[in-house]
C-alpha cells in the first residue's frame, strides 16, 4: 500500500501536466513577443520580420522538446504507479486482470473457473437479473434509501418495458411489490393497520403493494425518534401493538424499553414543572418513575419479576443512588444504541428478515471465500481437471463463527452433509448417522451395532429422523 501511495504522490507532485502547461505558456509568450516586435514601431518591422521568424525556429523546437521531456516524466510516473499496483496484487490476479488485461476473453476468472464445473457462479447470476434486482430493491429499502429505491424501481420498470416491447421476456414481477399505487394508498394503509392489529401479519396481504416501503419507513421513523430525539414513545407504542408476536419470539424489547423509560424518568426530570408543587423537586424524578412503574410493570410476564423488584428497590435510595447497592443496575443500563439495535432486530424479525442486511453479510462472506475459490479454480485449470459435484462447493470456504447461521451435520461415516434426501438419523444410543450410511451399515442384518459404541439395536425402526 505504501508503494502505491508513494507512486501516487509522485503523480500529484510532479508527474502531471502542470509542467507541460508552463512550457506551453512560455511558447505563447515567445510567440506573442515576436508578434509584438513585428507589429511594433515601423522602422524595424519590414527588415527584421523574416529574421525574427528565423530566430523563432530554434526556441520553438526546444520548447516542444521540453514538452516531450515533460510528458516522459508523466509517463514515468504512471509506470511507477503501475509497477506498484502490480506488486501489490502480485499473484492475486484471480479475476482475469493479468497483465494489462489484453486478452478479450480473459475476464472473470472465477466465474469461468467455477462456471465450467457447475454452470453457476458469477456467470450464472447474469440469468437471474430479476432476482438480483429484487434483492437490491429490498436492500435499498431496508437501508432507508427510499429515494434511491424509488428511482431504481422506476428505472428498472422503464428498462423492462422497453425490453418487453423488443420481445425480451424478463421476470420482473417483483416490481409490482414495490410500486405504490398512489390512488389506493390511503385505503390500503387502513387495511394493513387492521391486519396487524389482529395479529395476522402473515396473511396473504403481506406483500401488498408498497408494503415493505411502509414497513421500513415506519422503522426509520421510530429509529430516528429513538436515536436523534431521545424519544422512546414511538418505539414503546410499536412494541405494545406487537406485544404478542414479540412474546412468541421471546424478545425482551418491550421490557427493555420500559426499563429504559423508568430509568429515564428516575434520573432526568429533576425540574419537571408539573411535579414542582406537590413535592420536593429532587423527588419528582423518582415519583414520576414510580407512577410509570405502577401503570406499566404489572402487565409484564412473571419472568421479569426479579428485574422489576430491583428497579423498584432502587426508588428507596433515591437521593443517594450512586452510593447505593443499586447503582450498578443504573450504570449498566442498556444504552439507547443497544436498544436501537434490539429494536431493529425485533422489527426485522417480525418481517422475517435478518437483522443485518443479507446483501452485506453475503458480500462479506464472498470476500472471505473468494481467495479460496480462486486458488481452487487456478489449480483446476492447471491440472485440467474439472469439478463434478454441482450440488456442493468442492472446497471448504472458511467463515468466522458469526457467519454460521445453521447447525451443520456431517455424517461421521460417509462424511457427507445431511440433506433433504439423506437426512440425519439418530440411533437408540443417541449417535447420529446419515440415513444412507445407516442403510448401508445395516443391509441384510436384523440387528446391528452402533459404529461408535457397543449398543446393539434392531434395524427395523432403529433410526429416528432428527432435524438439525
Amino acid at each position: 500500500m505504501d508503494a502505491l501511495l508513494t507512486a501516487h504522490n509522485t503523480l500529484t507532485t510532479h508527474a502531471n501536466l502542470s509542467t507541460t502547461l508552463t512550457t506551453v505558456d512560455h511558447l505563447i509568450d515567445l510567440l506573442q513577443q515576436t508578434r509584438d516586435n513585428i507589429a511594433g514601431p515601423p522602422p524595424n518591422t519590414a527588415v527584421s520580420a523574416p529574421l525574427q521568424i528565423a530566430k523563432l525556429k530554434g526556441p520553438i523546437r526546444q520548447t516542444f522538446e521540453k514538452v516531450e521531456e515533460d510528458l516522459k516524466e508523466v509517463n514515468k510516473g504512471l509506470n511507477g504507479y503501475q509497477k506498484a499496483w502490480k506488486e501489490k496484487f502480485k499473484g492475486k490476479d484471480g479475476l482475469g486482470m493479468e497483465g494489462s488485461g489484453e486478452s478479450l476473453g480473459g475476464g472473470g476468472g472465477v466465474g469461468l473457473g467455477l462456471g465450467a464445473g457447475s454452470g453457476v457462479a458469477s456467470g450464472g447470476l447474469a440469468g437471474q437479473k430479476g432476482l438480483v434486482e429484487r434483492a437490491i430493491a429490498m436492500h435499498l429499502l431496508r437501508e432507508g434509501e427510499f429515494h434511491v429505491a424509488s428511482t431504481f424501481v422506476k428505472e428498472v420498470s422503464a428498462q423492462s418495458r422497453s425490453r418487453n416491447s423488443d420481445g425480451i421476456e424478463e421476470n420482473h414481477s417483483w416490481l409490482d411489490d414495490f410500486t405504490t399505487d398512489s390512488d389506493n394508498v390511503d385505503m390500503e394503509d387502513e387495511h394493513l393497520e387492521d391486519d396487524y392489529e389482529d395479529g395476522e401479519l402473515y396473511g396473504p396481504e403481506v406483500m401488498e403493494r408498497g408494503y415493505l416501503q411502509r414497513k421500513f419507513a415506519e422503522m426509520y421513523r421510530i429509529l430516528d425518534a429513538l436515536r436523534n430525539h431521545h424519544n422512546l414513545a414511538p418505539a414503546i407504542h410499536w412494541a405494545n401493538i406487537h406485544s404478542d408476536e414479540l412474546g412468541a419470539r421471546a424478545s425482551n424489547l418491550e421490557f427493555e424499553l420500559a426499563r429504559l423509560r423508568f430509568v429515564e424518568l428516575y434520573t432526568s426530570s429533576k425540574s419537571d414543572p408539573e411535579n414542582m408543587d406537590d413535592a420536593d423537586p429532587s423527588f419528582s424524578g423518582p415519583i414520576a418513575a414510580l407512577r410509570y412503574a405502577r401503570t406499566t410493570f404489572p402487565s409484564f410476564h412473571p419472568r421479569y419479576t426479579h428485574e422489576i423488584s430491583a428497579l423498584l428497590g432502587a426508588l428507596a435510595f433515591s437521593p443517594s443512588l450512586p452510593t447505593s447497592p443499586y447503582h450498578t443496575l443504573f450504570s449498566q443500563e442498556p444504552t439507547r444504541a443497544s436498544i436501537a439495535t434490539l429494536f431493529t432486530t425485533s422489527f426485522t424479525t417480525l418481517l422475517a428478515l435478518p437483522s443485518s442486511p443479507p446483501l452485506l453479510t453475503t458480500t462479506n462472506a464472498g470476500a472471505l471465500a473468494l481467495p479460496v475459490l480462486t486458488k481452487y479454480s487456478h489449480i483446476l485449470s492447471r491440472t485440467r481437471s474439472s469439478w463434478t459435484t454441482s450440488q456442493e462447493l468442492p472446497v471448504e470456504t472458511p467463515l468466522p463463527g458469526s457467519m454460521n447461521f445453521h447447525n451443520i451435520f456431517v455424517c461421521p461415516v460417509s462424511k457427507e452433509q445431511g440433506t433433504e434426501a439423506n437426512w440425519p438419523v439418530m440411533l437408540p444410543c443417541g449417535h447420529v448417522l446419515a440415513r444412507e450410511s445407516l442403510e448401508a451399515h445395516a443391509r441384510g442384518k436384523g440387528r446391528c451395532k452402533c459404529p461408535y459404541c457397543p449398543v446393539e439395536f434392531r434395524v427395523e425402526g432403529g433410526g429416528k429422523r432428527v432435524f438439525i
Partner: protein
Amino acid sequence: MAELISTKLDPDSHLLLDQPLLRLPHELLRKNLKSAQRHIEIANKGIATSIQTLTTHSSPADTLDALDATLLKAQTLKRKLKALHAEEATLHRQQKARIAHLQELHDIPTIADVKYDVWAQTRLDRLLVDYLLRQNYLASARQLAEAKGIVDLVDIPVFEECGRIEASLCGVHGEYGDVREALGWCAENKQALKKIGSILELELRLQQFIELARTDEMDKLMEAIAHARKHFVGGQDTLYGLRAGGVLAHAPDTMVEPYKTMYAPTRYPYLAALFLRTHHTLFALPAHPLLHTALSAGLSALKTPTCHSAHNPHRGMFSHQHSSDKTTSTMSRPSVPPLLTDTPVCPICSTELNELARGVPYAHHTKSYMEDDPVVLPNGRVFGRERLRGLNVKLGVPEGRVRDPTDGLGGAEWAWGEVRKVFIL
C-alpha cells in the same frame, strides 16, 4: 472447524475484488496522457509548418496573419491541455480517495472489528453502484453514490459514456443503430485498440458499408466501394475486404448466409455487445459485475442444505412464487410458523436471497458444526441445551417443562425428562 477459524484479516487476499478500483483511474490517466501527446503532436506540426512558410519573403501583413494563426494554435493547445490537466486532477483525487479507502482495510486487525463493518458497508455500496452503472440505471447509481458519499470511489462518467455509446449502437426498439459515436470512441482510443488487436473499428466500418450497400442506389453503391477501399485495405484482416465484396454481390433480401445475417438488424446488438466487451477490456474492467462475483461466492459459502429445506424454521415468509399466482400458492403454502430463535436469521433463508441462492452449490464442510451440548426433543428437533433452556425461560414455560421454541407460544410441551442427549460426532 468453523469456530477455530481466526477472524484475522488478510488485507491482500481480501482485496481480490478491489483491484479494478485502483486500476481504472490509472488507465484513464494513461488515456489522458495519450490525448495530451496527440494534441501536442498536432500543434507541433501545425506550428512548424506555419513558421516554415513564413521564412520565404512575404509581406509584413501576411507574416503577422500567419503569426497570429500560430499563436492561436498554441493557445488552442494550451486550452486543451488545461482541460486535460483538470481531468487529471480529478483522476488524481479519485485515486487518492481509493488508495485511502483500501488503506483503511489494512488498519483493521480483524473482521470482528466494528471498523470492518463500516468498511464492508462502503464496499457493498461500491459494488451496488457498479452494478447499477453496468445495468444502465444511471440515475439510481448517481443517487446512491451521492447518498453514501462515495462518488470518488465509483466510475460514473466512464459508465455514462459507455452506456450512451452502447445505447446509440443498439438503436431503439429494433431500429437500426448509429455507429458514429462508437467510431468517435475508437478514434479516441486508436492506439490502445490497436495494441489489443481489437476488431471493433473494422466491424463498425463494415456496418457502415452494409448500410450503404443496403440502399441499392448506384451512387451509394459507389460510395460503398470507396468506403471499402479506404477502410478495408492495408495490413489489417483481409477477411473484411472479402466480406464487403460478398455483401455487395448479394441484395439486401438475400437468403444466402452469412450475408443474410449481415444485413439483419441483429447486427446492431452484436456490435453493442462487442463494444461493451472491448471497452471493458481496454479499461481493465471485469466482464461481469463484481457484485455477481461477490454474491455467488458468498451465497455458496453461506448456503447449507437446510436453507432450502421444508423443515427450515427460518424460511422467509415472502417466498416469491405467489406473486405470479396469488391464490393457489398461498393456499398450498403452510402458514409460516412464527419463528423463534435468538440466533440471527440466515441471509440465505431470507426472502431477499432465498430464490437467488436456489441454484448455487452449498458450502462444503468436513465436520459437523453444532451448538454445545446438543439435545433432541421428542419431535426430533435438535438444540443446544443451554439455548433451549434460555428460550424456554424467555417464553415463560413453567419449570420442568420444555417447548419447541420454533413453534412459538402454541407449540407442544413436554417434560424436560423426555429431552435426550444426542451425540453428533
